């Protein structure tokens, strides 16, 4: 148990220091609190609940609750005894998910979900798992009577099925969980003061018009992006890394065979959910998907880019002039031009296997390479003549783009959390923003395992730790 230190966070708390001072002292405090569904208490080795750092406890539950814990040993968190179950059930129904699907995603027994929805006494960690699978901020469960976390996104997820009939229940559930990952990553990065790289890129409301199709503007925006981001004209080795540098969380998920990717808006920030199923199993297709979503995220204006945007594979590989929706047409053109600028592609025109070489050079898909070369040649030769037998991706491309779930030091880590999220969680634990127990729970491992793997995670994502 932690000893009272009169020069520490506790003293400042009792003395009524300013919020900023308290926050900064909380971050240096080693004091740990423990939370159940209903109360926050002093840490105790026998307690089985969620261990929270002083910073976590202060920023979520506030100083009055913490003062009470220090004075009385514990404080009531519960706003209304039935609130936790009601919030979970309402969110599940809003997402149109079955109890079974939520149980699968949360990796709990179906009976646990049913009991939780009745606000029965269960370990808080079971409640947390269910909340995360529903894109809810689990820290506020029971503390607030209303749901915290992406209400508008949830509403949009419910209606998206009408527009995308192939949106299955597991896909909705995977997107919700991915949204939680993105939301948490953004929150932790903000607490860590990790600033996204600033660019001069501004959204563009130009979706073409008579005589100027949207795809032409997509090409222009791609060229503009390469300039703004100082990428030159060569291959972009890692679109994944580029997203990270731009502060755009990229979350991997298994969304079935039809959806390529999804963009979600979370508290004014945007994230990409990248499908690893279907055609995206091929790294070049995955690059096209990321570039397409980047086209949306960097340039679409708010009305075109609402809480949730879903892209099918069928859209992504379609030639730009065959896409009716100008928003999608522009994003597709952006994608292909961003990955392989026509000016550069043109230089391959006299080569032995120009399409194959373009694929190898720019790490671009076969279909996209063909069309890009065809367009670079102003369609002066039949498309049927632009063929290649090459299909296999360069091994290096996999290494650059693949998130690290295959090589991640944590064996049981979920695919959605194996990316930068894992590094952000480790760094947040290192500086007391979250407890090691919380970080370990996020990454589905034991505390000791995480501490042992921390150095390897640091090596995989040096940028997350570079601003220390």
């Amino acid at each position, binding site marked *: 148990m932690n000893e009272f230190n009169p020069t520490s966070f506790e003293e400042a708390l009792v003395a009524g220091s300013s919020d900023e001072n308290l926050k900064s002292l909380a971050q240096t405090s080693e004091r740990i609190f423990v939370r*159940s569904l209903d*109360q926050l208490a002093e840490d*105790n080795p026998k307690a089985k609940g969620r261990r929270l750092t002083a910073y976590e406890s202060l920023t979520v539950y506030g100083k009055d609750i913490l003062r009470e814990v220090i*004075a*009385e040993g514990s404080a009531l968190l519960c706003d209304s005894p039935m609130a936790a179950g009601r919030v979970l059930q309402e969110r599940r129904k809003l997402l149109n998910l079955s109890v079974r699907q939520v149980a699968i995603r949360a990796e709990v027994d179906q009976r646990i979900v049913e009991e939780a929805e009745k606000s*029965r*006494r269960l370990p808080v960690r079971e409640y947390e798992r269910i909340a995360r699978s529903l894109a809810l901020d689990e820290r506020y469960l029971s503390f607030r009577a209303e749901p915290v976390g992406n209400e508008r996104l949830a509403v949009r997820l419910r209606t998206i099925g009408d527009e995308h009939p192939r949106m299955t229940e597991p896909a909705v559930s995977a997107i919700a969980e991915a949204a939680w990952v993105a939301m948490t990553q953004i929150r932790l990065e903000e607490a860590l003061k990790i600033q996204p790289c600033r660019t001069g890129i501004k959204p563009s409301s130009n979706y073409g018009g008579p005589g100027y199709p949207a795809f032409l503007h997509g090409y222009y925006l791609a060229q503009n992006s390469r300039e703004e981001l100082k990428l030159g004209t060569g291959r972009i080795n890692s679109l994944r890394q580029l997203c990270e540098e731009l502060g755009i969380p990229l979350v991997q998920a298994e969304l079935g065979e039809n959806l390529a990717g999804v963009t979600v808006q979370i508290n004014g920030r945007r994230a990409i959910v990248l499908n690893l199923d279907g055609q995206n199993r091929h790294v070049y297709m995955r690059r096209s998907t990321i570039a397409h979503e980047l086209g949306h995220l960097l340039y679409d204006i708010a009305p075109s880019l609402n809480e949730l945007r879903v892209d099918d594979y069928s859209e992504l590989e379609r030639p730009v002039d065959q896409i009716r929706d100008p928003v999608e047409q522009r994003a597709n053109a952006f994608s292909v031009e961003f990955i392989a600028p026509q000016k550069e592609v043109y230089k391959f025109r006299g080569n032995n296997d120009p399409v194959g070489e373009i694929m190898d050079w720019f790490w671009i898909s076969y279909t996209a390479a063909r069309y890009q070369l065809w367009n670079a040649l102003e369609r002066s030769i039949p498309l049927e003549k632009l063929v290649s037998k090459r299909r296999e991706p360069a091994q290096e491309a996999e290494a650059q783009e693949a998130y690290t779930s295959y090589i991640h030091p944590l064996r049981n880590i979920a695919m959605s959390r194996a990316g930068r999220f894992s590094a952000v969680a480790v760094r947040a634990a290192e500086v007391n923003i979250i407890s090691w127990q919380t970080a370990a729970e996020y990454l589905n491992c034991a505390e000791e395992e995480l501490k042992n793997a921390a150095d390897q995670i640091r090596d995989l994502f040096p940028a997350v730790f570079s601003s220390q």
Partner: protein
Amino acid sequence: MIHLDFIRRYPPSNPSRAAANQDEMRKLTSSDGVKLLTAPPASVSERRIPMKSGDPGCHLWVIDQSGIPYILEHALVTRPLQSGRVTHTNLTGGAPASCGGEIWFDPADEVLVYINGCSGRYGPDNSRKLEDAVEVVRQLGYNVPSFGWDSDADKPAKVLRR
């Protein structure tokens, strides 16, 4: 288990925390509304069914050498208390007690009371002790739904849940 057995098993001890102000150590008496819990019906002015700690109708109780003194948390005491409400040490004057918590008296059923171990000063430190305290009240003739133990916090539960 009866009162004396409980005292024997769990000898009274001093409050586990310092008082927030001097008034918390003032011992209230029957003229302030302190009563001793005996066989039902209990003499109370406010009967409510609780959902959580501190809900309206909350009475504080302790088990000490005198028995089970209790008082309405928001009792109108003869001389107002600095913190505006009664604390468990007001039942003991800061003297040792074996256990403490909150109790509500059912409005429709005179033998039905709801109990928890929520006391920052005398609260039980394990579930067995809470169960034994509840048993003492049962032995007086009450039906006692207990809030139970919150294993996640390793504290007496603050919410009445199934």
